[in-house]
């Protein structure tokens, strides 16, 4: 490993980088220096600002369409202003994307040479210009072969990418970057997230091999043991701030976890409920959910009567898939028992009828009828599922507008929904108030168990507290069992009695809300069992 570079030459130097989106500061005071041949890990939770930083480095349009960024980017000693990914490529900055930038219908060669195809002049190109030159597949195959050989990848270069194992796709991406001659900096965006352990090991070796050729590597990840194994230096971001930059020898996994999660803000945590005689309300056994990007791979979990269970974990690990799967919104498999009765999966109507209710994370997409009034939004599911608020005349039915209005007014008052009246359309409401309408609708069903996903996403701080308070109140006053999924650990710890952490589609463990930052950090990174070396009992 090239731990020590005595010279002060940086191949990439990002100085005092900041970014403001629509008046909200998402990034500030970030400094990042890369020496040739070093592996530099960037650590941080979801929303810590890693992606924004990379978007700035690659000149993505999302940055430039929202007013650019603050600070300087210096590549190889020369201040640059990168305005597009292609420009970044010309400057020698490459990226191995988390969601692969590969075209499945193309061969490996075609993908490696994407928009850098080698061409020969042909008949038409003499008349109509360079773009009509013929592709030289022989030369392209040779180049692709060279890049693949460098990675020790023994696969024919003309095989189509569709159907390749995920790890191969990852290596094809790397081969594409290596094929670019002037490559100086290579960014790996969570490269091991989709790999098995052996594949991940190979990838790490490859990274070291690439670094030994003098290419600097920026390694974005949340797997701390991998960082410990390959990185030379680390930079930790938290809430858009630069927390620390350290040499790897000067730190350990515990400190890294602490730096990643640790909140300086004081926060309240829910009391730990020690009573053990509670009965199981919802019993999940071996649940598999095929939700794209949030796959659940076999979770077994008991939810106790009258508790608030927090479900946490990093994005893409499957925590969102849990509620969506049980509610029948995505294809799922396994067994879920409510009060000892089997819940029928893959059928939202049945799930609702059995007394489950769901406040979706996709508020504006599937949570609300945006151009419909508040009152109708509140009662519509109850009308559909439980035939509430309806008068029957034989086969025909009619809405009872009076009762709907009364109920809506009651809800508006109870949940403190700020609006001009029950007939206002929900599109005009603020995020927090929209969320409350969603909750009101779920409550109208009188559910036995309430699922709430990302209740505070996209709403401001004040409204956050109100929404969380509402949940606590429901739980305390009505004894409602609530399962709250959230990316924000802090808010889970504020209201939940127990917190289940999902990692790689499986239950990593359950922690009490007052467990230490380090434990949460380790669990979310999937390192808990490796480090602690013991099984965590689900009822701990």
């Amino acid at each position: 490993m090239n731990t020590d570079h005595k010279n002060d030459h940086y191949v990439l130097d990002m100085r005092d980088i900041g970014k403001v989106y629509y008046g909200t500061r998402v990034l500030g005071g970030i400094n990042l220096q890369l020496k040739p041949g070093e592996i530099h890990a960037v650590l941080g939770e979801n929303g810590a600002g890693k992606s924004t930083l990379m978007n700035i480095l690659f000149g993505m349009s999302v940055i430039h369409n929202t007013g650019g960024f603050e600070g300087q980017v210096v590549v190889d000693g020369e201040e640059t202003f990168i305005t597009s990914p292609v420009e970044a490529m010309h400057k020698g900055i490459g990226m191995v994307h988390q969601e692969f930038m590969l075209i499945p219908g193309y061969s490996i060669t075609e993908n490696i040479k994407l928009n850098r195809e080698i061409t020969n002049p042909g008949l038409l190109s003499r008349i109509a210009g360079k773009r009509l030159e013929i592709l030289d597949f022989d030369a392209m195959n040779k180049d692709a072969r060279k890049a693949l050989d460098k990675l020790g990848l023994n696969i024919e270069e003309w095989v189509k990418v569709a159907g390749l194992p995920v790890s191969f796709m990852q290596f094809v991406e790397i081969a594409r970057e290596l094929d670019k001659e002037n490559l100086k900096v290579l960014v790996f965006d969570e490269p091991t997230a989709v790999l098995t352990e052996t594949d991940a090991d190979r990838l790490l070796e490859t990274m070291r091999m690439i670094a030994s050729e003098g290419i600097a590597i920026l390694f974005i990840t949340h797997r701390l043991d991998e960082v410990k194994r390959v990185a030379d230096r680390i930079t930790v971001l938290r809430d858009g701030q630069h927390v620390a930059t350290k040499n790897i020898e000067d730190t350990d996994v515990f400190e890294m976890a602490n730096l990643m999660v640790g909140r300086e803000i004081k926060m309240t945590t829910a009391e730990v409920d020690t009573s053990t005689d509670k009965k199981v309300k919802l019993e999940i056994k071996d649940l598999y959910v095929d939700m794209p990007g949030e796959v659940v791979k076999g979770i077994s979990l008991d939810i106790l009567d009258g508790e608030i269970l927090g479900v946490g974990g990093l994005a893409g690990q499957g925590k969102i898939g849990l509620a969506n799967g049980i509610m029948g919104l995505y294809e799922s498999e396994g067994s879920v028992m409510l009060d000892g009765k089997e819940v029928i999966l893959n059928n939202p109507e049945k799930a609702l009828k059995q007394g489950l209710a769901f406040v979706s994370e996709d508020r504006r997409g599937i949570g609300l009828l945006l151009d419909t009034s508040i009152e109708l939004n509140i009662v519509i599911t109850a009308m559909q599922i439980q035939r509430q608020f309806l008068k029957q005349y034989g086969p025909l039915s009619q809405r009872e507008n009076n009762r709907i209005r009364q109920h809506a007014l009651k809800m508006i008052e109870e949940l403190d929904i700020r609006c001009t009246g029950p007939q206002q359309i929900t599109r005009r409401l603020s995020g927090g108030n929209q969320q409350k309408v969603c909750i009101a609708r779920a409550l109208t069903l009188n559910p036995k168990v309430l699922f709430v996903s990302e209740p505070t996403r996209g709403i401001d701080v004040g409204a956050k507290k109100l929404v969380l308070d509402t949940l606590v109140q429901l739980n305390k006053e009505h004894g409602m069992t609530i399962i709250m999924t959230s990316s924000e650990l802090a808010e889970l710890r504020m209201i939940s009695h127990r917190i289940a952490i999902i990692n790689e589609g499986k239950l990593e463990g359950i922690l009490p809300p007052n467990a230490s930052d380090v434990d949460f950090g380790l669990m979310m990174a999937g390192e808990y069992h490796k480090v602690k070396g013991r099984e965590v009992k689900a009822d701990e």
Partner: protein
Amino acid sequence: MDANIRVTPPELSLVQKIKKSLVHNMVTVFFIILCVIGFYYSGLTFGFLINSIISRLVRNSFLVLALLLPVMAGMGLNFAIVLGAMCAQAAIIFVTHWGVVGMPGIGLTVILTTPLAMGLGYLTGKLFNKTKGQEMIGGLILGFFSNGIYQLIFLILIGSVIPFNNETLVLSSGVGLRTTIDLAGGMRYAIDDVWKLPFTMAGMAFGVATILHAVYRYIKGIPTLAQKPRQKKYLLSGATGVAFIAWLLYIRSGSSYINMITVPMLTVILIALMCIFTTYFARTKLGQDFRTVGQDRHIAGVSGIHSDNTRLTAMILSTVFASWGHLIFLQNLGTFSTYGSHEQIGFYSVAALLIGGASVTNAKISHALLGTFLFHTLFIVSPLAGRNLFGDAQLGEYFRVFVAYGVIGVSLVMHAWRKQIEGRRRLSQQ
């Protein structure tokens, strides 16, 4: 490092292979069966059928081939070729009015129609770039809309605002064109009549070409697509070529009606050139860009391909080719409905392409040619079959309309169904 994993698809038994290819080609198989049944009940002689099909195949193929480029660029089936057809028709009307006949007339029409089609193709492309994902419905509506403008020009402005003094073309009121325009004595058969060969001769030439192609590919493979030499399918296509020649020799030895059939060779050569161009184009950098944009606009953009410009190019090329194709179409037909011809060819060409097994995302030359063949077979036999089966001439006419529009619906549904079946299989394999 050790990475000797080979990615080979699981071995399939013969039955599985047949089943898989049947599912994969179910649209085409369905229409082949329909054609065979239709032919049986139509009571037509084989010779007559071949004659009709050849004349229609030659007429329509170029237009169907014009649909391929937009599919490659991921823009779906280009219903907006109607605009290209309009350009061609407008040019033909003026050239007929000026009295330029024969090949010079065709030349002048091409000179007039090409810049016009380029302009309209550019505008269509601009519109499609603003309505991404809705190109097909957008093109359909655009066709109807531009038909309005076309009618305004040729029904109202001609003779009133645009001076146009021609008794045979203009209505007796002096304003607006007649509903049908006759090209007899003008550009009718101008391309077709340049060089004609008996069908048996042309067929044998085609057979020899097939055999040569098969032998060449069998020995060399397709290195660019990493297709190994000695593929069995080329043996098959070579054998088909031999059988075809043998059959033609047999026909020539007798006195069949088929011996009387002639093929307009120049038109066939133009179609062949179009095929060669499309193949060649697919191997150019621009062709690769088309495919990249068609597969994934986002990835194309990130790799620095201007997807909007690429799509624009696809539309311009397609519209220009469509206008040329319509010119070939009309000179063969010899007469056209002033206000309806262009509107029809959009549907007919799309239907033909779909029957050939193309889908909204994948269309090849073979799809276009096979589809045109099947579509016109069905078009010829279905009215007669309908009449013979139900004993009513009206029903026969109904069948013709059903064929034209019904097949688009049926084949789209079948493509969707096929995708579903294949998707389910993929899931169960995982």
